[in-house]
């Protein structure tokens, strides 16, 4: 078990390294000069140079550069990538150029918002997706099954930004109602006000993921229902509820949990849009604003953190298999 986790963590580090390089290369071709943007319109050449220097933009981008002349590689002791990597490892993330605020502070303030949105979305996904999937599988080919399947394929097809837009503007146009926007209220401070703010956003975000889980739990349970041990369970006279829940559902959970883990990456991407629309001051909104304002060190850091979260979650999912299916041992 330990060796398995260790090996996966090592692969995770390799993946993160790949990711950081890809994002760094991509962002290095972005048009526009962050120094010029920061300096303003009436800006002299030497002022820009000074800002470029203070931001470290005059350094080489990577510690190793490929050149046209022999020996074809040159090494730089100071490079933008090296500096950034050191900052990320030491936890000194510097200051956001747009918000004029330390990045660490911004993350600390905004993390709870995104975490709450994610948790709420996951809860809704599980609470809606799995039960309806099970019902659909149990009453296969009944009208109820068709309704659930059509709803789920509809949920997979509908763009979340459109639903979010309609959720906001239709009540506003008809009843002049809008959920509280902007500043968030803490859950411990005012639970009802807090949920009023987060539930619409989480429900919209959960639409696609719940639909996916519905379809998956239906087909996964149908697959399990065909197994011999289900017949055995019935034959030895267990009640149908026990057969379905304890023998059927538990065995069909592995693919469901896998996909739930994989969905987190997609949901984090979706939070970029949803936090923007519902003006929830979370990390998605932060990343989006920083990307738009070409504050690249911050974007790089955020992508790396998102990568870390997704990799750790998927590892947790793989480890949890052993709990769902004792036959699985990692050795």
């Amino acid at each position, binding site marked *: 078990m330990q060796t398995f986790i260790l090996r996966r963590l090592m*692969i995770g580090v*390799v*993946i993160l390294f*790949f*990711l950081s390089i*890809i*994002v760094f290369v*991509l*962002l290095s*071709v*972005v*048009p526009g000069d962050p120094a010029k943007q920061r300096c303003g319109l009436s800006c002299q050449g030497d002022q820009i140079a000074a800002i470029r220097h203070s931001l470290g933009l005059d350094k080489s981008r990577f510690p190793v550069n490929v050149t046209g002349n022999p020996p074809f590689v040159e090494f730089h002791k100071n490079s933008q990538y090296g500096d950034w990597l050191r900052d990320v490892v030491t936890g000194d993330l510097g200051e956001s150029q747009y918000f004029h605020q330390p990045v660490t502070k911004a993350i600390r303030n905004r993390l709870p918002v995104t975490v709450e949105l994610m948790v709420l979305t996951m809860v809704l996904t599980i609470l809606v997706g799995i039960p309806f999937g099970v019902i659909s599988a149990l009453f296969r080919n009944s009208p109820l099954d068709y309704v659930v399947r*059509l709803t789920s*394929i*509809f949920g*997979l*097809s*509908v*763009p979340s*930004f*459109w*639903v979010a*837009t*309609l959720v*906001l*503007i*239709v009540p*506003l*146009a008809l009843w002049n109602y809008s959920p509280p926007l902007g500043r968030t209220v803490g859950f411990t401070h005012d639970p009802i006000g807090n949920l009023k703010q987060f539930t619409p956003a989480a429900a919209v975000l959960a639409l696609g993921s719940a639909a996916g889980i519905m379809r998956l739990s239906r*087909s996964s349970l*149908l*697959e399990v229902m065909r197994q011999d041990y289900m017949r055995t369970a019935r034959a030895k006279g267990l009640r149908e509820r026990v057969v379905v829940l304890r023998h059927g559902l538990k065995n069909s959970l592995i693919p469901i949990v896998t996909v739930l883990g*994989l969905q987190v*990456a*997609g949901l*984090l*991407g*979706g939070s*970029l*849009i949803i936090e*923007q*629309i519902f003006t929830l001051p979370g990390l998605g909104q932060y*990343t*989006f604003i920083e*990307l*738009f304002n*070409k504050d690249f060190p911050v*974007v790089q850091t955020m*992508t790396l953190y*998102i*990568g870390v979260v*997704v*990799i750790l979650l*998927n590892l947790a999912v793989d480890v949890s298999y052993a709990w769902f299916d004792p036959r699985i041992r990692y050795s």
Partner: protein
Amino acid sequence: MAKDITVATSGIASGVFERPERGRSAAFLRQAGILIRRNPLGFIGLLIIVVFGLIAIFGPWIAPYGLNDFKAGDPNAGMSAHNWFGTDAIGRDTFSRDVYGARISLSVAFISVLGGAAIGTAFGIISGYSGGTLDSFIQRSVDTFIAFPSLLLLLIIVQALGPSQRTVVLAIMLGIIPGVTRVVRGAALAEKHNQYVEAARSIGASTPRVLFRHILPNVLALAIVIMTTLLGFAILTEASLAFLGLGVPEPAASWGRDVSAARNNFPLQIPAAFFPGAAITLTVLGFNLLGDAIRDIADPRLRGSQS
């Protein structure tokens, strides 16, 4: 039997089905009838796609007003016989813009999915067949992309290269490649141990020949099946990028951008927000329904659980 049906549907989907001879046309119609009865939802999906495809092709003849015709009606007019879906803040006809939006949406989706699936299939075959270092390098790269919100990566790509139709296509293509690579690799891995591969090798076929003349045709059906669903994904992604202001730029009409424009409009125009989004939903729904049906037909093992 199953193979014949797959060929038939892919022929219908791409519109290149040759006119069968007399005797066979009756058989073909009968077979199509069985297919439709067995998969009514897939047929509905196909119909939706055909309708939107026609709208995209014949857009300028269908739209009553020009794409950027500021004199189509009063600004912010509601739904009327004159402007079916109302007008936007500067007096452009929403219905006409939605019609033109089909062009961008479908062309971006088709080009990016064709390109992405082709590249992904090539990577997948190479990765699965070669094994060893190359395989693990490709697979770790795929992991990198999958372990990451694709939307954020696409936003970075578009921001990096500057929004244009080409950039959007490229970004969506890059978003598609990893998934296709992963799926095709699995299939190629299974094909690799078949006897026909061994036979080809033993008569001295080169590796590229084995890959693209022998293994490729056998994983192609799978690639086509995933492509249908990917088209829906591509349309959703294009719309999301456009909504965030990083899609195909003006003066082209994009459904996603029109939803965003309607959201920021005051007084609120619900039709201007509703119809472009409904168009996205319907198109994606069409591809998802058709994709499900094709998967049912192509993979008989799944038939029991799906229908």
